[in-house]
């Protein structure tokens, strides 16, 4: 049997991952409520100075997404581990890079969806305004979630097979995500407050470089992570 091509495999696996998420809507709902709860926590812990909250809203958004991503990524691989599906896929045989691409893109889509959902919440809770064009905010959310998803999927695969996996994933992921976090949060803050000095493109550039580097490394290194 001819081994399916990389793009074809990726597409099929991506559909599978999204279908799994859709079928277990309860998990997705839990993720949404977790992020909302996180935003509330930040507001209470750092409020009630509304001007201060509004200024830091970009940071809160990305912190909420980051914390939610740990749950999402952990779940994404727990499912695989419980049913030994990764080993099954490798036996078909499916290109490991397709597994990575599909999972990472699915995780990115899930997180981006979450991000878009949280924006109206921020508008309501923290009284932020969207000063720059909408498209720029959506693009930033997309780039930022891609930044979380690539190393997140790679580390998720590693952590799911190690001891103390719930602690190991954030411990490994958070330090290296800091540059992306800074770029995304600063960019979002500019979207909410306006960008008189034209700094937005440089943050986007930083985020894009981050994405290119880590997606490249992910595609390169994932096969070694899941090999026997």
């Amino acid at each position, binding site marked *: 049997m001819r081994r399916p091509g990389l793009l074809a495999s990726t597409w099929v696996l991506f559909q599978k991952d999204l279908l799994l998420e859709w079928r277990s809507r309860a998990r997705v709902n839990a993720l949404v409520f977790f992020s909302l709860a996180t935003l509330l926590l930040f507001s209470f812990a750092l409020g009630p100075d509304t001007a201060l909250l509004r200024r830091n809203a970009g940071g809160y958004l990305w912190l909420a997404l980051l914390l939610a991503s740990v749950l999402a990524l952990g779940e994404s691989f727990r499912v695989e581990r419980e049913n030994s599906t990764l080993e099954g896929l490798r036996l078909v045989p499916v290109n490991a890079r397709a597994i990575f691409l599909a999972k990472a893109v699915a995780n990115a889509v899930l997180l981006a969806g979450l991000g878009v959902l949280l924006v109206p919440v921020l508008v309501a809770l923290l009284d932020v305004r969207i000063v720059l064009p909408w498209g720029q905010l959506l693009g930033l959310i997309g780039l930022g979630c891609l930044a979380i998803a690539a*190393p997140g999927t*790679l*580390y998720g695969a*590693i952590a799911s*097979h*190690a*001891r*103390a*996996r719930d602690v*190991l994933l954030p*411990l*490994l992921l*958070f*330090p*290296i995500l*800091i*540059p992306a976090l800074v770029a995304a949060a600063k960019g979002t803050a500019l979207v909410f407050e306006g960008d008189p000095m034209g700094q937005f493109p440089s943050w986007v550039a930083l985020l894009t470089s981050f994405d290119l*580097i*880590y997606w490249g*490394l992910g595609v390169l*290194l994932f096969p*070694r*992570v899941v*090999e026997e």
Partner: protein
Amino acid sequence: MSKSVRIGFVLFAVALLVSGAWIGLAWAPPDREMGHVQRIMYMHVPAAWMALLAATLNFGTCVSYLWKASWKKDAFAEATAEVGLCFGTIAILLGAIWGRPTWGVYWAWDPRLTTMAILLVAYAGYLALRRFVDDPDRRAVWSAVVGIIVAVDVPVVYFSVKWWKSLHQVQSTPKTVDPQMVIALRWNAFAFLAVLIVFLVARYRIALAARMRETTVPDASPGAREVVAS
């Protein structure tokens, strides 16, 4: 390497360190602006250099391991990460102490400090991963992967002062610095290099011994697997 050579080198490293301290504390002149606080640089800068050197060695070893696996490489990767973390912590602590009288603060969110802190926490994560994976083969492969990912930060740390003109000073060249200070810095740099070598060799031996213990099984038990250090 015979025992006497090893002990000799350790004593040599200690001698360099002690003499370097005297040079830094007494022989070198005080700075025009920083006064005696400048002397902290003779410890802070070499520590930072050694940390980055260890990180670079770790990256090279991880790539090499993925290319062709060997327990020696895995042991050396473990050594460079831990020793690098040690020197990096010293560097960042000394930087904070230096920052108090000069910048007025122990810490600032400037790119070099931030990226260096990221690097240290990332290597702590690397060491935690090694501790939480029991299978030696998987531990070696996954550490190599994580090591490569972490190493992306190393050039960022090094070039951060050039890319973003923020608080931490740009690298000085010897041409603009008092020659006595240059000597003091270079002497201590070599002292720290000697200490790095001693630490790396020792930590490597410890790691390799642990690897051998994990992977050689007494002949009597079923499924015995003997691995020869290649």
